[in-house]
Structures are given as C-alpha cells and as structure tokens.
C-alpha cells in the first residue's frame, strides 16, 4: 500500500532478524502486535480459546515465512494482520457448514481503541479503504465485509441472502472493481 511503503515502519527491521532465526526479534514483534492480532482472531472467531490457538499458529507461521515479507509492498502490521485473518478464516471453515448458518447481520467494523495505530500508521490506509467502501451501495458493502470477516463462500452468501449465485457474484465483482478504481484515484 502506498502509505505503508512510504511511512517508516519501525517493525521492518524485526522481520529481517526473524527471517535470520532470531527468537528475540519474534518476541519483540509479539510484544508489539499480539494484542492487535488477538483482536483480529477474536473478531473472526468469537471464541477465546480458538483465538488463542490460532494466534499461536500465526506467530509460528510468521517465524516460518518471515523471509517472504516485502516491506515495499506492505507494512509489517498489514502483513501479519493478513496472516492472522487468513488463519482465523481457515479455522472458521474447519468448524464445518454450521458456521455459515447464521444470517447476514450488522457487519459494521468495531472501532476499538487502537493502541498500536500510532506505531503502525495504518490510519491513512484504513480511512482510504473505509471511504471507498462507503461509496459502494449498502448491500455490496455488507456482502464484501461479511465475506472478508467470515470467509463465506459465494454459495453460502447466495443462500443467506436468498439471491441467485450469479447475482451475488456480480455484486461482489462489480464492488471489487469499483473499490480498486476508487483506491487508485
């Protein structure tokens, strides 16, 4: 992301040290990011015990994959948050089809105390994405957010919304195209 690439990211040097196998660097990254990533896991899983499991797994994954981090493409926080989100979604899917049974409901992003934010200069990216999402119609925003936070497939979304699969697919594809256009402008 543009903002991530231009903002000095104090966590970046840690990634190099982690990639070199330095446990102390991973511990420092954990200190700086674990509350944020635990928040991500909890948001997706709504279960403390599972979130703890996933969080463990996230740091082991970071340890293994630190060499793939590219500071020119993303901030450390964006990168580790994405790992946490993907792992949490994997866990959610592993619960089975029942996990998708509930209705689409209030998908608003909880605006919590973001203590790490000043560290991470994430605010610009967030505001931009937020602004672009809010330009989409409500229904499209809602399905994109639901999919993002729950990893819900097209089929399950169509089922929940009682809409044809092709229609849901077209909402999302159009929405994503608009989102990209807006983020680039």
């Amino acid at each position, binding site marked *: 992301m543009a903002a991530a690439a231009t903002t000095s990211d104090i966590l970046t040097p840690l990634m190099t040290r982690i990639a070199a*196998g330095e*446990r102390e660097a*991973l511990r420092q990254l*954990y200190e700086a990011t*674990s*509350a*944020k990533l*635990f928040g*991500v896991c909890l948001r997706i899983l709504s279960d403390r015990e599972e979130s*703890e499991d*996933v*969080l*463990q*797994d996230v740091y*082991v994954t970071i*340890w*293994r994959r630190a060499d793939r981090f590219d500071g020119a*493409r993303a901030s450390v926080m*964006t*990168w580790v*948050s*994405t790992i*946490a*989100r*993907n*792992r949490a979604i994997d*866990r959610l*899917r*592993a619960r089975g089809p029942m996990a998708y049974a509930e209705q689409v409901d209030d998908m608003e*992003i*909880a*605006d*919590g105390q*973001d*203590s790490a*934010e000043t560290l991470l200069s*994430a605010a610009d*990216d*967030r505001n*931009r*994405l937020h602004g672009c*999402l809010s*330009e*989409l119609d409500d229904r499209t925003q809602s399905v*994109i957010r639901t999919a*993002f*936070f*729950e*990893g*819900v*497939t*097209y089929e399950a979304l169509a089922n929940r919304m009682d809409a044809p699969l092709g229609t849901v697919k077209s909402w999302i*594809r159009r929405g*994503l*195209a*608009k*989102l*990209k*256009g*807006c983020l680039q402008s």
Partner: protein
Amino acid sequence: MSEAPDLSENEALAAEHALGVLNARDRADAEMRMAREPAFAADVEAWRMRLAPMLSGLAAVPAPQGLWQRIERLLPANDGGIASANDNGAIMNKLRFWRNSAVGGFALAAASLAGVMVQVNQPPVVVERQVPVAPQGQLLSASVTTGEGSRVQPLFTASYDPDRKALIVTSLLPEGSDRDKVHQLWLIAGKDNPKSLGLVESGKAKVIALPTELMAKMAEGATLAVSLEAPGGSKNPNGPTGPVIGAGQLSRL
C-alpha cells in the same frame, strides 16, 4: 462513484480468492495457480493488502498471559534453538504419544509404518545431546510411501542437499487433497523423538532450510514420515497428533 472498468477474469479471481468467497474447489485451484504463476500470486497478494485495512479498525485485545511461552515452545526446527526434552518422563510421554497416534493411523499406512514402529517400540532412552558437526556432503533422498507390495504409492519425495543446507520436499498428492487437513513432515533419527520439519502443501514443492542440529541427523537410514494434521499442524511439537499416512527412509542418491 464513477463506473470502474471490470476486472480482468484473472484479477477478479485473484480478488475473490483474497476476499475468501471461493468455494473449496475453486480455492484449491487458486492456490495451485498461485504456486505456478507468480503474476497471479502477486495479484492475490495485492488484493490481500488492499483489503487488509479493514482489519486495522478492530479493537486490540491483550493476548493471554503465557501465550508467548507456548509459542516459543512450538517454534519449528528452522532455527538454532530446538526445544528438546531433557527429562525422561517427558520423553516417555512423547514417545507414547507418537506410538499411539501411529498405531491409530490409517490402515493403508500400516505397512510403511513398520519401519517407524520398530524404532519407536524400542525402550525410551535419554536423547543424546547432538554435537553439531560439519555437513557430510552427502546427497540423500527418500520416497515417502503408503501401501505395500504392488500397491505401494509414493506420497512425497524428499532430497537432502547438504550444500544448500536444505531438504527439498515435493508432495505428489493432488493439489487441494485433504482440504481441511495439513500434511506435516517429521524426521525420525535413531531413538530421538520425531522432529517436525514443517508442513508441506498438497501438490507443492518446498525447500526446508535445516539448522546444523538437524543436518547432523540427516543420515542414511533416518526416517521421514508424514502425518495428517488439523490446520496449523500437530499440537504436540514432539510428534504427530494425527494419523501417519506414509513413511520412508533416507538413502544415498
């Protein structure tokens, strides 16, 4: 908002994969394409980064006390400080755990397990502290198989390259197979409890960097085994939790 041009079919798929709306089959296809097409992988990654700021509005919640210590114990073998059990009781437990999960494993793996079983059924012995040694310069390979007789089926191939200090593992399983599970690779050298070498995705090749301690154990006759685990791998750092689906011994090329 002005009308945006449609995404190309490739980019739409990348965006859908990053968002998470693809079903299991399409997801597996997308993963396969990411492994083979760097441009597609870059598209997916770019979309992940585009969407990630949705996460930055979430409240931070302090992680539970003691979690770091648990993580540190789980760190796999790609570093210099492998967690090793030094008391007899722990080793007994770990071996028992390994043996139980091996016995409870898939019937189809029974034959290839024989080699593993012989080793784990020996009485537990205190693990000798390994003195790091210089690489032997010996190329080794192993075929991790399942089944027996004419029905032996290779599941993974592995080559050890001492110059690269790495084990190159290739999964021969179809991409996306065992979708809700992961395949974890183990090294069983002598009487030590199994050492995790990490996860190997179906249909993919992986280069596993080896620390000196593990390089010293890469010897003819050491066994590689693969277990089927829940996402994230075995909860037990010293042995599989899930069934062992295949095993094979390292031999000289």
